[in-house]
Each structure stands twice: as C-alpha cells, then as structure tokens.
C-alpha cells in the first residue's frame, strides 16, 4: 500500500504588530490608542464568508500597529468615530460597500456616501462578483 502524505497548507504570513480584540472591548482599546497619541491611519474590511474581519491601523512615529475584530455576519460593530472623528468616512465606506452595520457613526451618510437609490447594496461583498 502506498504511503499517503498529509499536505499541510502553507501558513499565511500576516502583517506584524496585530492584536485580536473582541467587539465588546474594541472601544476601550481604541481609547487607549488615542490616549497613547497614536494617529488613526485607516480601517480595512475583509469579507471572510461567514464573518467580516476589520482591521484598525494606527501609527506612531512611522511605526504601524493594528487592532483586529471579527464580526459574524448579521451582527453590528460600534463606530470608533466618538474617539477618532477621522474614522467617520471609512466607516461609512465599509458600511455601504461591505454591508457591515456600523452603529453611531458621527456623520452617517445612511448608505449614500457612494451609492445612489436603486443600486444593489454591498458591492464589495464576496458574493457580488464583478460583472
């Protein structure tokens, strides 16, 4: 009998300085980053099928650090714009283009930052292929 060999998938190399946090502790962590004078750079959303992965990127003296939350689809994420006002634009973008509900955004465009009436929502979601 031929010996079978298990093929392990190659480990994905992740970005460095990343900390996983729970949605419930997100605002406290973000407040801590603000207290430590970290500059908010941006957020990145990834559609992982059954959940969204959201990364928060902060900079201090050219050094990047990141927070990561995983949000099951159908659940919402609190806005961080009460701590970092600068986040309101990218939060609206993620809410609109991915369909992730983000609550209490300082300026909420109600899904009309980019999209107009009648356009199919969440065009960046993985189940919406580019035509």
């Amino acid at each position, binding site marked *: 009998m031929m010996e079978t060999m298990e093929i392990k998938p*190659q480990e994905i*190399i992740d*970005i460095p300085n990343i900390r996983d946090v729970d949605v419930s502790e997100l605002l406290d962590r973000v407040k801590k980053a603000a207290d430590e004078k970290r500059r908010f750079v*941006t957020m*990145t959303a990834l559609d992982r099928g059954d959940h969204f992965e959201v990364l928060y990127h902060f*900079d201090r003296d050219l050094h990047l650090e990141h927070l990561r939350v995983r949000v099951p689809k159908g659940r919402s994420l609190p806005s961080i714009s009460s701590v970092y*006002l600068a986040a309101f*634009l990218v939060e609206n973008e993620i809410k609109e283009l991915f369909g992730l509900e983000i609550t209490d955004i300082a300026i909420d465009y109600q899904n009309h930052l980019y*999209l107009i009436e009648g356009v199919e929502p969440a065009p960046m979601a993985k189940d919406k292929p580019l035509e």
Partner: protein
Amino acid sequence: MSNRTVIPFGPQHPVLPEPIQLKLELQDETVVSAVPHIGYVHRGIEKAAERMEYTQNVFLVERVCGICSFIHALCYCQGIEQLQNIEAPPRAKYLRVIWSELHRLHSHHLWLGLFADAFGYESLFMQFWRNREMLMDIFDKTAGSRVIISTCAIGGTRRDISDAHLQEILDTLDEVNKQLDKSIPVILNDYSVRKRTVGIGKITREQALELGAAGPVLRANGVAQDMRQLGYAAYGELGFEPVTENDGDCYARAKVRARECYQSVDLVRKAIRQLPDGEILTKPKGRPKGRVISRVEQPRGELLYFLAADGTNRLDRLRIRTPTFANVPPLVAMLPGCELADVPVIVLSIDPCISCTER
C-alpha cells in the same frame, strides 16, 4: 440682523478641478460648520483588483490617479515584492526615486498654479504650469508617455534611463530651479497672497494628529513625518529629511510644498549622481501569498496599500488608503470660523485629489 443659511460648495465649482461637495452652514458670511460629500466619481478599483491577475494590477493601480500614477504602481509593486520575498536591483531603486520625485515636482507645480489661480493670480498660475511642462516632457522622453508612465514593474522597473536622458533631466532641473526662484517668492512674500493665507484655515498640531492628517497638511503643523523616512526604494541612501513648518495655516501648507519642490530637485540630482550600474529587474518567482502593508509618500502624503494574497494569481483583497481621503476630516476642522470667500483657498490648501479619494 444675523442670517443662518446652508449653501452647497461644489461639486462643480470654478476652483475645483474634480467633484467634491461641502455643505456649508453660514452665519452671515462666516462658516459655522461643513459636511463633506464625495462619491460622484467612485470607480470600484479595489473590487476590480480582485478580478484581475496580480500582474495586471500594476497597470490598474496606476489609473487610481493621473498625477501620481508612478507612485501608486511603486506602492503596489513593493507590496507584491515583499510577498514574493524578492528585492528590486539597486539601479531600479534609484530609478524609482527619480521618477517618484519628478512626479512630486510636477504635482506640486500643478498645485502651486491652482493655488495661485484660487486667489486670482492667473499669470502666476500660467508660469507654474509652463514650468511643469518641462517636467512632463521628461516623462515623455524617458517613458514615452506624459501621464501614465508605466515604468514601474514587480521586481524593479520596466525601463532604464539612458545617460543622455539623465543629462537632459539635470539640464531641465537647472531651468526648473531657475524658474522656481522667480515664482516661489510671489507665493511666499507677496502682500496679497499672505493676506489670503496667513492665519487662514488654521488647525493645531493636536488636531492634525487626532484627525489623521497626512503629508504636507501634517508637516505644516510641525510633525516631521514622511514615509520617505522609511527608506524605501533608495531614499535610505539619499540623506532624506522631511520639510516641516509650524503654523498649521494655508500659508504653512503652501510653504511646505514650495520647499519640497527644491527638495525634490536635490533628491533627483543626488539619485542621478549616485545611480549605480546594473540590472533593473529581478524576476518574480512564485505567486504571492500572505498579507502585507506597503507605504510610500505621495505628493499629498502617506499612501497605504494593504494586500492579501492566497497563493493564486489573483489577490484576495487590495485596500488603498490615499492621502486626500485622510485629509478630508482635517479640512472639515479648518473651515469653521472662516469667511465664505476663504473657502476655495482653504479647500485647495489640502491639495485635494478626488481621483485618488474615489478609487
């Protein structure tokens, strides 16, 4: 009797080359608050990048912006190179600096001209843009194209620059410098220009940091932060130091860009002087796998690309954060308290690139 009104500034406005709207709430002639509206020309480039092969994306990301197309390609290529664990040859790194700084130089000329036009200095506008033409001609000669030059490639550069063209660049820069010496003093010293810019659209250093400002908007508040300090391409070998000013107003932002013009001229001269011989392209190997963040300095500030690849010939995710996107919240903070007549100058002072913002 006071009068509170809301007026739309843009999306079509004589001072705006691209569409953005600010809903301005006014108390008589004074701005009380501003709410920005974008989305008039959004193109879905991040989504398109998931559909195209990662090698094709070099040409896609160049089209994010026609003013700093090379720098978008550079940011993307550096990210893919990190994922593939390859490094561009030394000569290619210097060529990348040369084309990057020429892009910054022509972009700052474009902005200085538009800024002059915003307060009615049409002749000065034309002088800056005439000067800029010399730089566009360099792109035409070295790349065969004026706007999307497509010289950056994964693993290095697609083209080399001949000795004859390097000499031509040096001669052109001498002339550009000479013309800058004539035009920049008007921006910095003219009574009317100072009247329209000094103390106008001011934010504090704390506001700039809290609101996530990038590039000259951040550096005009005394924050010495520029992605070129990371030493990417050949910047680490050119003794780069960021330009800063401290006043955080329209004048300080103009001054940072004016000084950066001279700095870019010096960086190109240094890069040409130190340009090593050798290959210009390292052959890419395998397919990218993993996640990486690539950061470079655009004329408008920090450009960030997040790349996620799963080992196929397509990326799982490409996220592009452009500097104007970061500078919209600081703009909202600059406007309250200003006169309506100052709004065009303040908006232009962040050097808005809506093409970048609306990837």
